[in-house]
Each structure stands twice: as C-alpha cells, then as structure tokens.
C-alpha cells in the first residue's frame, strides 16, 4: 500500500515536477515523472506554494508528447481506465492530480487492474475524485439552461465546481447537433463553442458580452436586447409548468434541496424570478 501523498514529508521529496494546469501539460509532467529515477518525484500544480525543502522543476507543455503518452497508456490500460484519470484531473480536488500521477505509474505497470485496488488510499482517492467530476458532469447535462439569442444561436451559462466542460461537450453536441451554441463555464471563463456540422472547440477567456469582464455574467445579466423575442415568454411558460407539477400535499423543500443544492439555483430558470 502506498501512503497518501498528502501525508508525505517534503524533506523526503527533494524534487517535485510542476505542470501548467492544462491537461496536456499535466500529461507531460506525468511522462517526466515516469522517466525519473527513484525516488519518484511528486507531480504538483505550478500554483501550489513551494515547500521549504522542495526543489521544483517546471515541465513544459508539449502536445505531441502528451498525445504519445495518452496513446501508450490507453493501449496498456484501456480507454475506461484513462477516462477515470481524466475525470480525476478535471475534478480539481486537492491532491487528485498528484495522486492520479501515482496511479498513472501503476497503470503503466499493471494495466487497468491497478484501479481495482480500492483498498489503497491513493487509488481510492482518485476513484472518488473521478466520481465527483463524473456526477457533476451528469448533473450539468440536466441543469444547463439554454437561452435563445436574437441571432438564432443559443447560450448556456454554468458554474460547476469541477472543470466539466470537456465531459459534457459531446453530449450537447450530439443532442443539439443542428444548433449553434456556447456552453459557458462562468467560473473558469471558458466555453465550448459548437457550430452545426463541425467538431466543438474549447476556448479560454470567453465572454458573452465582450464589453463586460468574464466571470460576472449570469442569465439575469444577459442583456435582454440580445435575447430572442420569444425567450421571456417561453421562460414564463416553463416556470408555470414547474410550479404546477409539484403536489401540494407532498411539499418537501428539504428533499428538493437535497437533490438540487442551492448553489446551483442561481442559473436555473425555474428557480429565479421573471
């Protein structure tokens, strides 16, 4: 059994390898760690505070190198196992990325079987982080709310805790194949842009209204002038439906917020006023 990385003393870890926070950059750092001699260097984010005795080396992002490692690991461990690693990375939970780097090492050695060792705290923490991202992505496929803009395109703002856009983009691109849409992560200022007939793409620094800084916008903040003329009428119909469908004799606000925590309410059409 491996000790959880968080419990290790920095003095036992003379070298750490830092990634730039991007998925390819992270994979490159993992590749570097795989090649390093014992003791295996820890993989950390470059934003993490530097430990007193830590000597840190930043690893440059190289998309070709990242793709090569991805292909090698996928060939050895299979796509489902690597998807779990990706989900753990996207969970942005403390230590998930560091622990996933350890798991990658074991995947290279033992293949997908490494992920079955759930009695190991490092494997378990990666599994849990992946579950968290996957669940939130699943939730987002239900609670993303699209608005129609005057130009006929569609816009959906999200505020997920995990970086779920890469996990939900395929779903919405398949479902709304004929719609031009932007799926906007307000927390990270990032968006998935979809044009019918083309593959979706992920952009950083997206703002619906370029005049305003990214991160402050919400559906209430969308300039009504850029919405389609029908939008507010249809939102109104949805609110009417939503309130009519609850059974008065069974009202249970506690159960409701257990299912849909209030942190998500702000962006839900049915939970906000007019």
């Amino acid at each position, binding site marked *: 059994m491996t000790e959880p990385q968080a419990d290790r003393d920095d003095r036992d870890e003379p070298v750490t390898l830092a990634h730039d926070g991007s998925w390819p950059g992270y994979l490159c750092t993992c590749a570097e760690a795989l090649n390093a001699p014992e003791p295996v260097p820890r993989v950390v984010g470059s934003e993490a505070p530097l430990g007193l005795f830590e000597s840190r080396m930043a690893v440059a992002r190289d998309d070709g190198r990242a793709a090569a490692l991805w292909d090698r690991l996928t060939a050895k461990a299979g796509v489902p196992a690597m998807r779990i690693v990706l989900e753990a990375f996207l969970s942005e939970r403390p230590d998930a990325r560091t622990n996933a780097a350890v798991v990658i090492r074991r995947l290279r050695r033992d293949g997908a079987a490494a992920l079955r060792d759930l*009695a190991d705290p490092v494997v378990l923490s990666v599994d849990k982080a992946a579950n968290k991202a996957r669940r939130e992505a699943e939730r987002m496929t239900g609670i993303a709310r699209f608005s129609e803009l005057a130009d006929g395109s569609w816009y*959906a703002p999200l505020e997920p805790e995990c970086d779920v856009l890469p996990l939900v983009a395929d779903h919405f691109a398949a479902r*709304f194949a004929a719609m031009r849409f932007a799926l906007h992560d307000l927390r990270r200022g990032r968006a998935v842009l979809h044009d019918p007939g083309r593959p979706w793409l992920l952009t950083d620094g997206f703002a619906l209204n370029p005049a305003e800084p990214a991160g402050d916008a919400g559906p209430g903040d969308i300039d009504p002038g850029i919405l389609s003329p029908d939008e507010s009428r249809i939102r109104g119909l*949805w609110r009417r439906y939503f309130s009519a469908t609850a*059974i008065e004799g*069974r009202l249970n606000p506690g159960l409701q917020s257990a299912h849909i925590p209030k942190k998500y309410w702000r962006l839900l059409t049915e939970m906000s006023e007019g």
Partner: protein
Amino acid sequence: MGMDAATKLSILADAAKYDASCSSSGSARGNAPGGLGNGAVGGICHSWAADGRCVSLLKVLLSNACAYDCAYCVNRRSNDVPRAGFEPEELVRLVIDFYKRNYIEGVFISSGVIGCPDHTMERMIGVAKTLRVRERWNGYLHLKAIPGSSVELVDEAARWADRVSVNVELPSQASLARVAPDKTPAAIFGVMRALARASGFEPRKVLPAAGAPDRLALPPSAGSAAEPVPLYAARPAPSGERSVMAARKGRARDPSSAVLPAGQTTQLVVGASPESDATILTLAENLYLAYDVRRVYYSAFVPAGRDPRVPALPGPPLLREHRLYQADWLFRFYGFRADEILGPDRPNLDADLDPKCAWALRNLDRFPVEVNSADYLELLRVPGIGPRSASRIVKARAAARLTPESLKALGVVMKRAAFFVTCSGSSPPLPGYSRRPSPDARYARAALTDGARLALAPLQMEFDWGAP
C-alpha cells in the same frame, strides 16, 4: 377557446402530476441528421419540484376532460375542476421550445378519455407522429395507453414512443370494480400483453391454471375481510421460481431499438383501497415476471375532492409508499422475492425498518457474512451494502484483505453492516459503542431504525378500514 397558453399548461400539468412515472431511462435513440435530440440510456433529471420529485419529462394531459369516473382520479367526470385541452400543434411547439432550452428530457403525454379509448389513443399518437416525423425530434417520448385500446393502436404507439405505460392503479379486481367502474382487468391487462409483445416479450401466463381456484384468499388485513384477487391472480411465485432480478438477467434488451426501447411501466395507487402491502408487492412481482414491466410505480393516494368510494385520508400515505419503493428495489436489484419480504403472517411492511433490515433480523441464521469470501449475492443481502459497494468489495478484496476501515472507504454503511458482517473472522466495532455488535441484541433494532417514520409519518395518518 380563448384560454391563454399559460393557463392551459397549468391546468393540464396539474391534472397529470399524480402519475408518479418520471423516468427517462432505457432509450439510446440516436439523433438523426438535421434532427433534434437523442435518448440518454441512464435517463437525465432536469430539475426537482418543491415536493422533491424529479422533473425529467414535460408531463401533461392532452385533455383533462374525461368520460370515466374513477374515484381516485382528480380528472373524473364527476369532479368539479376547470377543463382544458391542447391543440396538437400547441403541445408540439411546447415540447420543442422546452427541449431546445434543455428544460426537459422529453415528454410524457397522457389524456382523459375523450369519447372512446381508441379515439383518445389516436389523438395522442397524432402528436407523437408529428414530433417524430415532421419535427425530426428524437427526445424521450412516453405515451400513456388507455385501457381498452385496440391492439393495432397500442402497436402504433409503441412504434413512435420510447416507453408506453398503462396503469393498473387498483391492486385488486374488487377495488377496481368499486373505484374505477369504467375499467376492467381485461381492458388493462390486454394492453399490457400487447405492449409486452411489441417489445419482443411473450407474456407469461399468470392466470391460475385450469382447475385451480380462481379466487385466492389472502389473509385479512387492517380489519377488512379476506381480500379476493380473482383475475389479477397475484399469487406468490412458487419458491423455486426465479427472482425478478434473476429473470431479468436472462432478458436481452436493446436500448437502440426503434420500437419501445424503454418498454412498459405501470402504477399502483396506495391507500385508496384496503389491500395490504403483501397484496401490492405480490401483484407487482407478477407484473414484472409476466409482462416484463420495467418499473412499477407506487403512488400515495392524494384525496382530491370528496368521493364516498375512497377514504378521506388526512394526507397521502407517504411512509407506506416509501417502504413499498424500498421493497421494489429489493426485487429488481437485490434478488429478493416477494414472499421473502412479506408473507401471510406479515401482511404489511415495518414502519421503522427498511425491508432489508427487517428481513435480515428475521434471518439471523444467514449471518454474519464474511466479506473476504462471501459471493456477490450474499453480500447484497447485507444491510448497509448495496450493488455498488458489493461490487467494489469483490474488486478490492482481490488485491488486499478487507478490514472495517476499508469497508467504510468502499462506501459500506457500517452503522448497519457492522451487525451482519465479519472481516477475517472478527466482527467490526460499532462507532460509539464499546461492545462488539450482536445482531440479536435489542439495540440492533434500535440502531437499524431509520428516520423515515419521523420524516414521513406526520404526513400520514392511518385510515381505519375496519371502522363503519
């Protein structure tokens, strides 16, 4: 005429909300080129209403005017409520507008009986066909079949829909005759048979064989006389019979099928008639086995207006409904049979314990279970272990021997499981107790009591069926 769209929508949503079916799972219908939408096999919840129920489908009636007079139903013809009806185009527009905004996973269309069952079915099928053909919409479509519809129309509904359901509602023929006089068992089960065949399942015979008594007396419950259940033939499956879970394992399903990929479901109303939990669960098990029903929904009776044929409950029997759902999960995911959960000596579910804990305390000879060697099905029977943690246990113990700590990390609810397992021969400690758990101790029952009664019983008052 003249009624605005929002008012219509309110009336027709209000009229549809007592149908408990909300699921949008089971269909992998793909999007078509230039089309809109697809199915998500696992189903997707899009919101949760103030009553805590999930909102996945736009659940509306095409019309709430109804020729029938079912006492449990808010839309019965003798009830004085405002009536409305959608023009087919209005409903089509609404579905597309909501779907594009990702408010909904699809639509669940039902209707009051307008004229005759076939005419009503034709109107619903018309909307379905427009959505599928003209709008090229591939979202989740659930149609309600009207009892007594012709086999041809049931087949056509199955062609467009992901799921079609027909509601049994009353758990015995006697109650059906009293509470829903316009419906007959033959009209309901005829549609169920047609739906089973449409999804490639030959219905099994549940009627008693020739020569067998056609009236089965179940034990008296709640002060009523013995319950006659002719025609429904809800007899317990013989003990050699497979469980619902085992029967389903042998049934290949194709979520990508164009016809009825998500199969059929049904609903039983709880508390509008005197049947015991045993009668309801035995009937549900028969429906799963005989018609390959995917889900049986249990709907706590909400009194709507005064009708002397149904009891004037002070509130819906939510605790009872909750326990029935728990027992239903034991059928589908844990390999239990109805006669293991309830029997002639125990007609009703325990109010304080979930049905699995109650079963475990009655079958202490099967415990403790050694987590390092028990097979998957044995693990599933342990309170505090579900399908997810059971398969995690099987995976994890291949790598290392399991300890109480690792069980907890794997998601086992130790508060319950501690009474029923051993880890390498020794029983795990209970948090907060100095002693080792012993399942026969009186505190086991206390510790296993869940909060459901506290949370739900204040809303539920028992109706005394024996009172004059």
